[in-house]
């Protein structure tokens, strides 16, 4: 039993992704600096255009009516699309291929010839992906603090920190969902595409739900509904229910993944 707490598979998973971690981290730091850095040059023209006709056409973005403010701009340009969608796709892709890759590539046979349980494989693959996210998460936060200071915009860094802390349960849910798909689907591309479809689908659902109060209920089916970066950045207002939703979903996906993986045949084609 104590073997599980040695986390050797998790450590190996971490090592396997160190290059990806560095690349994605740099990418997101650059992205953060670029978008935030663009704001001063856009600010005036956005304010000029900022009549209700204009921002209503952006209604499918959260808090589009605030896009002329620094926090609104960051939410719309950086957090909503690049953080909560693109980054989720990128690291979700890795999670969804984590176990399916071993089954498709048949390395699962040799891995499981060791005294490791299937549950352990599921947990350790999950744990092994967390450090990658933490590095990307806090490096991006630091880059954002740097550029905000450099361009002299005002941003509550305490709130920024909360956004990045609360990004953790959101991304753990994405990982956990990815791993669940990964134990069900044997082909890594297929598994990843399914996860990406779900993430994009949820993004679309959330966008639709923003269009009209009639559609609001659709948003409940989207992760994005439970994580409002604007409200946190602007006023430090935290959606406690959302945090619980993410924690419960993470645990649920992990448990289902463990049970399913435990019971399935690992056949080789």
């Amino acid at each position: 039993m104590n073997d599980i707490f040695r986390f050797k598979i998790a450590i190996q998973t971490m090592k396997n992704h160190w290059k990806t971690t560095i690349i994605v981290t740099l990418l997101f730091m650059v992205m953060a600096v670029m978008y935030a850095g663009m704001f001063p040059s856009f600010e005036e023209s956005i304010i000029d255009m900022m009549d209700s006709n204009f921002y209503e056409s952006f209604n499918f973005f959260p808090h589009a009516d605030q896009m002329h403010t620094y926090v609104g701009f960051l939410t719309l340009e950086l957090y909503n699309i690049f953080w909560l969608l693109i980054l989720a796709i990128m690291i979700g892709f890795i999670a969804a291929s984590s176990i399916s890759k071993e089954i498709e590539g048949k390395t699962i046979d040799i891995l499981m010839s060791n005294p490791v349980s299937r549950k352990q494989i599921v947990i350790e693959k999950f744990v092994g992906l967390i450090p990658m996210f933490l590095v990307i998460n806090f490096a991006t936060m630091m880059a954002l603090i740097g550029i905000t200071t450099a361009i002299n915009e005002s941003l509550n860094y305490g709130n920024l920190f909360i956004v990045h802390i609360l990004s953790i349960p959101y991304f753990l849910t994405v990982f956990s969902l990815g791993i669940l798909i990964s134990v069900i689907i044997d082909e890594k591309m297929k598994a990843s595409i399914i996860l990406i479809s779900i993430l994009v689908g949820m993004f679309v659902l959330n966008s639709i739900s923003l269009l009209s109060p009639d559609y609001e209920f659709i948003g409940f089916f989207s992760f994005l509904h439970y994580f409002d970066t604007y409200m946190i950045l602007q006023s430090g207002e935290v959606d406690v229910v959302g945090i619980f939703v993410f924690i419960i979903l993470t645990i649920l996906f992990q448990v289902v993944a463990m049970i399913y993986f435990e019971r399935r045949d690992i056949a080789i084609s």
Partner: protein
Amino acid sequence: MIQKSIMCPNCKNKFTVEGNPGEKVRITCPKCDTSGYFYFPKEKPTSKTEVTVIETKNLSKFYGKIKGIENLTLSVKKGEIFGFLGPNGAGKTTTIRTLLGYLIPTSGEALILGKNIKDNIVNIKRNVGYIPGDLNLYGHLTGKQFLDYFASLRNTEMTLLDELLKVFDVPLDRRIKGYSKGMKQKLGIIQAFMDDPEIVIMDEPTSGLDPLLQQKFYDFLLDQKKKDKTMFFSSHVLSEVDKICDRIGIIRNGNLVALEDVETLKSKMGKIIKVKIKEPPELFKGPKNMKIKGEWIEFVTNEDIDYWIKLLAKYTIVDLDINEFSLEDIFIHYYEGQT
């Protein structure tokens, strides 16, 4: 007290002496009075009590409606090399993968080292090594990184690692991606044996090894056998099974059709008699299984060699050949009429 019949070196008189194993007895020949000492041989370590280390009871695995294996009952004893024979697709790999918990049995059960695979598979794997048939290793790791990773997962001492690396040298600092098939196979062998497990289960382990390495591998297996380790070995290469296995199981279409000592199996099968006679071969009235191949008469006989030889003596024999069944013949025998 055991009795031993001895012969006097002087007068060639035969008589019996009594004594205990390991005892030195002074004896005198009753006939010529020559005397000397007789040493009773020490008792051989009592033939090891046969411990079953792998046991399957009516083990079946169906993939939906497709049969993988059906009602497989076999046992492998400690210290033996068990050969598991069958052509491709007969169910060898399914058996091994079910035994090792990759596939969940449809019915029946299996015990390894006395533990049920159903709820003890992780513990079982502490004492069982495995070389998969379709061996795939982590290409992005170097040989050394791979072995280190697996050593850390096993979390025990790698007592055989150095010896294995001497026998099966692999470029440890190169990435496995760049390995040849033979190198990968060697690495597969190393990882399976490096912590000197009680049992090693191998799915066609010699594929990809050149004849020289195959020989090294057989020698290594025989050394392990001397240390009372058990090896379960699937193969379709009969010569290697003949060379190293103590017992074999033959699987056909998912069913076990033979389970026997290799020598017993051979003697049970009888002898193949091939004979050429001067007279037209049709004249000879052989057993039912007799075949005429050109000038040669060919048939199999079990206990009545004497009868057939005497019958043949009535003809003019040009050439005669009596052979034991080879494993090849046995195998073909079990597969006759099968595609």
